[in-house]
């Protein structure tokens, strides 16, 4: 049985296998309150699977995942979200047929049951909340646009905005700058620095320059296990890390 800790999120001895392949294998990971953690590692290291496990999309085979000292491994995805864990998918996952405003409105964490949704009123507070977030994600003037017409980078921001409006305590971002232009990357880095002020964030990223610009602590994963952990400098100088990942 896993111990209680002071961490916001604690993964201990977590494992999952798909048809005998152990995608995550005895993983320990602790994330502190207010921490920004970056997970790096080669393709197939199990990074995205770890996020899937935390948010309940994939069930763990072994081990314990605790959020604020509560075991969450048996919870349903929507329950985990409601307790304060938000997740951004690798490819921009937004509602293409709805407008930017509607995308953000649906993410406001109220009226989530069927009847609440049927009787939902678009109150001034909701509109204000949506505008506030839209401003943060550089989409203030795009609220009426159908989301399918946004650029790739804007879609990524919109999804981040949809998470922000949920105001999660732990935000998990899977490759938030993938496919972005240099200018968009810089803006996203600034955005992330703004976001992490009030919450913990886990970021999966391949772009090392981007990682250097934001990271507090870096976890390197390889073959479903933690290979190294520490600040950017330590990790970069670790010979094992150089061999499996950075050396390429």
């Amino acid at each position, binding site marked *: 049985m896993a111990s209680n800790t002071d961490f916001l999120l604690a993964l201990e001895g977590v494992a999952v296998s798909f048809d005998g392949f152990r995608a995550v294998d005895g993983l320990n990971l602790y994330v502190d309150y207010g921490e920004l953690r970056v997970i790096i590692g080669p393709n197939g290291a199990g990074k995205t699977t770890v996020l899937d496990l935390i948010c309940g999309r994939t069930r763990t085979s072994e081990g314990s995942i605790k959020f604020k000292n509560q075991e969450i491994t048996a919870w349903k995805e929507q329950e985990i979200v409601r307790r304060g864990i938000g997740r951004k998918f690798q490819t921009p996952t937004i*509602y293409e047929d709805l407008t930017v405003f509607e995308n953000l409105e649906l993410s406001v964490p109220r009226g989530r049951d069927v009847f609440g949704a049927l009787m939902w009123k678009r109150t001034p507070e909701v509109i204000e909340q949506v505008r506030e977030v839209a401003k943060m994600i550089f989409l203030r003037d795009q609220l*009426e646009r159908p989301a399918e017409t946004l650029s790739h980078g804007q879609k990524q921001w919109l999804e981040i905005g949809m998470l922000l409006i*949920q105001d999660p305590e732990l935000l998990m971002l899977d490759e938030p700058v993938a496919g972005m232009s240099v200018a968009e990357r810089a803006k996203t880095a600034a955005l992330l620095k703004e976001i992490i002020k009030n919450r913990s964030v886990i970021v999966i990223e391949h772009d090392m320059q981007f990682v250097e610009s934001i990271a507090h602590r870096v976890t390197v994963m390889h073959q479903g296990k933690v290979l190294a952990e520490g600040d950017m400098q330590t990790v970069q100088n670790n010979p094992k890390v150089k061999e499996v990942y950075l050396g390429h």
Partner: protein
Amino acid sequence: MSAVPSFRLDNRRLELIGFALIALVILVLLPSVLDIFRLNLFGKYLTYAFVAIGLVLCWGHTGILSLGQGLFFGLGGYAMAAFLKLEASSVANTKIQSTPGIPDFMDWNQITALPFFWVPLKSLPFALFAVIAVPTLLSFILGAALFKRRVGGVYFAIITQALAAVMTILIVGQQGYTGGINGITDLRTLLGWDIRTDSAKYVLYFVCCLLLLGTMFTARFVLASKLGRILVAVRDKEDRVRSSGYDVANYKIFIFCLASAMAGIGGAMFTLQVGFMSPSFVGIVPSIELVIFCAVGGRQSIVGAVAGTLLVNWAKTLFSEAFPELWLFAMGGLFIAVVVAFPRGLAGIMTDQILPRLGSWTTLGRSAEPRPAPTPAE
């Protein structure tokens, strides 16, 4: 800047105009130009439109394709037919039977007492309740069993289709309890009011129209609410909806139940206007026809679904009077044409092609800027 996007407001205004046009056609135009025989036929077509509206909700907006809506249409129709049959089977009317007071088909099948599930259907309030409750309950059980397990898409379509087939076999096989292949026939009165007269047919036609308009406004209300946008979101990105803290299965169950309840009302109006109910309106072929009506009209448009249902059925009647054996081929061809060439149906042609051309000289066209066609549902 208003919070509601202008194109949505315009679309809603456009939809209201569509509602008004439909009301005008079914309440004023058709009754004034058609004799009662033809009007009664259109009344029958309108009962299919209840199902088509339900399909707009669950297929067009949520992406759940049910190929078994005939099942729910039939359950509503049978509940109504059972009540009418019991009223027609009074002891006085059935005194030549070996067991007077039960429906004739039961007597023919050596059944000597009314089966327990027929007993409550002697009451009109219960029968009306059953018209909505039975289809809703069955779709709730089906939805809870499948959607909670994340069965969807093609699998869901196949399962609903299989259920429609099972229901037909059950009805045909248990003819002592259900009337079998002939269905429940020889329905006469509703609380003593003869439903076979021309005046009754007029009244029932208008009741059907009003219920249909009520159903259209219900669907419009649901689609305009946040729930309606969640349904579209579920169709687009189910994972994201779940990751925003919604229980996706509950939304699917809700909309599927609502669609089935609508189908049940349609079935009951069918029985009242046509005067009988039979398994030929329950199985796979009628269920697929219902999907075609919806697809031709436009599966995302309430107005389109109603108009499509009327047009296809009208064409079916004209065509099958002239070339009875060719109709099924024409129907198949029509469906292929819709899927390949205009996936948003007649409503899509209207808003994407016709209205923008009118746009230069009316204010209506402004709202109808073409939007990329969505990918066809699986």
